[in-house]
């Protein structure tokens, strides 16, 4: 198990307890309570309705699509969907918050308890850990302040104001940076499978508040009730940073306690340049948000029909897909890699469909992971922009499967397809094989002739082989294949070579 993350302090070992609040922007073409658009990167204040700017007398109207996406997300983590939920106002003043309150759900969230299962080791089902999700509620995002537009004033961009967010609140179930990272990656994968959030952390459409506390190993605090005082580090926007926050916070807290101090319950900010967290506000400075039910909105009541449609629209989720792939003989590791992201999984599913040879699935998985992913990585391309289309990949793999080309030749062909200067960039593999004459041959006359040449040129090695140095067989195979420019059918070549050496 990887679950033995410990902080080695001066006075003993410490365990770290982690909970994450993930804010995920809902994929929808309109905001949570207004018809305004939600495009990322638009000119400031161009995606703003009268409601988002909180003009006098403007009222919120819930956007059904945002609710639907949050419900589907809840269903994807097996959570309880609350048929009756309600919106509350969280009141505070800030220049990026036009209404002077954020519409959120404190008392009656849309989604109740669920869980996310993560593998700490992708090769080992035994490393599975279940991370509890306490709730998912929907809420409005705030706008953005711009401090670099004017020497003495700050500007406000309300494009993001009112955009729908899901706040996914985990239980304090994680015990290491690795677990937190695995949870975040898995959650991101699920959101992207469901299509409720694009999971783009760089653009801020997914960010996490990281709650960290520490307690002594073997101390009285093995139960949840006995957690240490936690800090909350706000708005961390990558998996790597989340893990860095945990490492830093855990060490900082242990040192603080061992020096005789106490952890203050406070809100902190992460400085990615220095890799440290610092105090944003202490508990004493915490806002009194004066939550109360939003009187502009009626409670949200979900009907059976709506829920059934949400459920019916769910795709096959990562865990189910992984199990299906393993059932096709794909290794646990490969299945985990292929299902880690919805784009790769979709590519692979479409490839299997095109290939129509389930028995060839493990080879296809190998090719996708070692050849395609390897090349995409080298060329810095995303799977969605792969120069080898699903159809072409299926064609290439069919050529291997029916013995037209060898895996070695296949590798050459894919390289040609991916190389913008090869003259074959984006060409169909069949065409490349034909124009370059790469077809594999099983012509025994041709193969025999080459074998004879190789054996004649290496009489000393033939003697050694016959004297018992059987490892030289590979040498003869390699030399013959080289002489045939890799086009010999390996099975035929092996068979003929063995026969000749035995003669």
């Amino acid at each position: 198990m990887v679950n033995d993350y410990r902080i080695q302090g001066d006075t003993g070992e410490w365990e770290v307890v982690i909970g994450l609040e993930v804010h995920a922007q809902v994929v929808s073409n309109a905001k949570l309570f207004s018809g305004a658009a939600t495009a990322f990167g638009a000119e400031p204040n161009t995606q703003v309705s009268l409601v988002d700017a909180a003009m006098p007398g403007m009222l919120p109207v819930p956007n059904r699509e945002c609710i639907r996406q949050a419900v589907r997300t809840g269903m994807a983590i097996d959570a309880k969907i609350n048929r009756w939920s309600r919106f509350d106002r969280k009141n505070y003043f800030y220049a990026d918050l036009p209404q002077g309150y954020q519409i959120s759900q404190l008392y009656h969230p849309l989604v109740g308890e669920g869980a996310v299962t993560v593998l700490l080791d992708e090769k080992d089902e035994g490393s599975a850990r279940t991370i509890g999700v306490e709730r998912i509620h929907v809420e409005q995002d705030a706008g953005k302040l711009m401090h670099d537009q004017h020497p003495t004033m700050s500007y406000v961009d309300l494009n993001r104001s009112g955009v729908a967010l899901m706040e996914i609140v985990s239980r304090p179930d994680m015990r290491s940076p690795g677990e937190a990272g695995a949870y975040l990656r898995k959650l991101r994968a699920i959101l992207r499978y469901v299509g409720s959030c694009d999971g783009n952390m760089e653009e801020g459409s997914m960010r996490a508040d990281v709650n960290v506390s520490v307690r002594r190993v073997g101390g009285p605090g093995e139960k949840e009730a006995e957690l240490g005082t936690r800090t909350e580090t706000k708005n961390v926007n990558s998996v790597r940073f989340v893990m860095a926050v945990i490492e830093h916070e855990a060490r900082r807290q242990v040192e603080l306690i061992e020096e005789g101090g106490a952890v203050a319950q406070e809100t902190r900010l992460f400085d990615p340049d220095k890799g440290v967290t610092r105090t944003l506000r202490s508990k004493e400075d915490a806002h009194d948000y004066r939550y109360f039910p939003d009187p502009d909105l009626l409670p949200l009541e979900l009907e059976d029909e709506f829920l059934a449609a949400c459920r019916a629209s769910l795709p096959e989720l990562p865990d189910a897909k992984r199990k299906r792939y393993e059932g096709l003989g794909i290794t646990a590791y490969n299945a985990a890699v292929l299902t880690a992201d919805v784009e790769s999984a979709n590519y692979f599913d479409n490839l299997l469909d095109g290939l129509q040879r389930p028995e060839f699935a493990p080879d296809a998985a190998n090719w996708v992971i070692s050849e395609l992913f390897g090349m995409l990585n080298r060329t810095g391309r995303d799977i969605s922009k792969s120069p080898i289309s699903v159809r072409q990949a299926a064609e290439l793999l069919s050529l291997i499967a029916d013995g037209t080309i060898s895996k070695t030749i296949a590798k050459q062909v894919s390289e040609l397809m991916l190389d913008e200067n090869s003259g074959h960039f984006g060409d169909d593999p069949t065409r490349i094989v034909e124009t370059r004459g790469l077809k594999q041959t099983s012509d025994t006359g041709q193969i025999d002739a080459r074998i004879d040449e190789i054996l004649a040129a290496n009489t000393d090695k033939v003697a050694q082989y016959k004297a018992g140095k059987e490892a030289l067989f590979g040498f003869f195979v390699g030399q013959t294949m080289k002489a045939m420019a890799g086009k010999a059918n390996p099975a035929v070549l092996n068979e003929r070579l063995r026969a000749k050496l035995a003669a």
Partner: protein
Amino acid sequence: MSDLTSKAIADLRSGFRSGDFSAREVATAYNAAVAAGRALNAFTVETPEIALAAADAADAARTSDDLKPLSGIPLGIKDLFATEGVDTTAGSNILKGFKPPYESTVSGKLKAAGAGMLGKLNMDEFAMGSSNETSAFGPVISPWKRRDGGNAALTPGGSSGGSASAVAAGLAAGATGTDTGGSIRQPAAFAGICGIKPTYGRCSRWGIVSFASSLDQAGPMAKTVRDCAILLEVMAGFDKKDSTSLDLPVPQWESGLSSDLKGQRVGIPREYRIEGVPVEIDALWDKGVEWLRDAGAEPVEISLPHTVHALPTYYIIAPAEASSNLARYDGIRYGLRELGDGGLDGLYASTRAAGFGAEVKRRVMIGTYVLSAGFYDAYFTKAQKVRTLIKRDFTQAFDRCDFILTPTAPSAAFALGDKSSDPIAMYLNDVFAVPASLAGLPAMSVPGGLDAHRLPLGLHLIGRELDEQGVLNAALAIEERAGFTHRAEKWW
């Protein structure tokens, strides 16, 4: 009052349609009355050109036989309604000069129905007040004077005081009001006119500056019950831009008017007989019962046991919602901005200190307090529970009766300054009006008679949810029998 400005909307409508006068003549007469009536301080903005444009459109429509329900009718619009391109301030300095780029649903419906707008009507700041003295534009003066030898300026009530004064003085044929805890009914009673607050959700709140969202409701104020029915029919209706708006067809209230109350029972709540109410108000109440009996209704005594808690409950819920609704007036995007010490908190503090009046500040502070950690359950949660009990009182009462009759207010109009230093005394003005607001029920004030000083007194009818027709019909029966034709003598 010229002949035209003394007419009811129904009479203006028929006179205009039959060609007795043009819409332009009507608008011109009203524009002149508005200009001549500035001593009443009923308008915050006068828009004679808008009234004339609508009148010309109405005259053209009459020629082309394309008349709309309110063609030729000039109205005043309470300043709480956003009116496109026309100052909308909610009676507050914090919105002084604010011209919305949008039109409230209700005022838009009136416009679309052909009505003209004479101007925006003065009101208590953010509709918080019962005497119009909290307005940043100064108090509205009632056209009525006491017959006591003095010359005290009287309040028209509030918060829709400008609406009440304008209609009573013939400065508008009718007006929009809003009612959160009596803001249509109490001023209607003080000014000797009719006003109805429909069922919560009948009229869209979209574009009306929010005071307390769960209570705010628009309604008409006019000289007669029929006029109220005519206006309400246009103002009401589902609006998908307001989540709390009711998705129901609008009944034809005007054609449904009938003062025959045979077979109906009128509930007389014993809890509404309270200490300190002038005997003439109790006497008028008794008279009202007799009028309704005469119209065929059977009086039954009912009990609304939680009435005594209504006012405190209201003064928790309404300020709580207001404290949050008014957070948007922060000096950042529109309205007044005072930079203060330059920091963000300083900007907020200076802007709101300068922009809000004392009563608004009081209610924002009360609301903030009752929502605060540690007080929320004791105040807000408990108030919500009591509100539920008050609603249940009415539900149970309506098992025994079809509508309820009470006085509208515990006194006639009082002099400006009389209660402005005593908030509690001021809040007591709405003691009879607030329970129906908390329950979201339709309720109406209709003039019943005059007190010893010859000031108007109103009777108050509360109906079942969605039964505006029942309320209007009972009010009509009283109107026919009370014979209230008194008008304030012109002194302005």
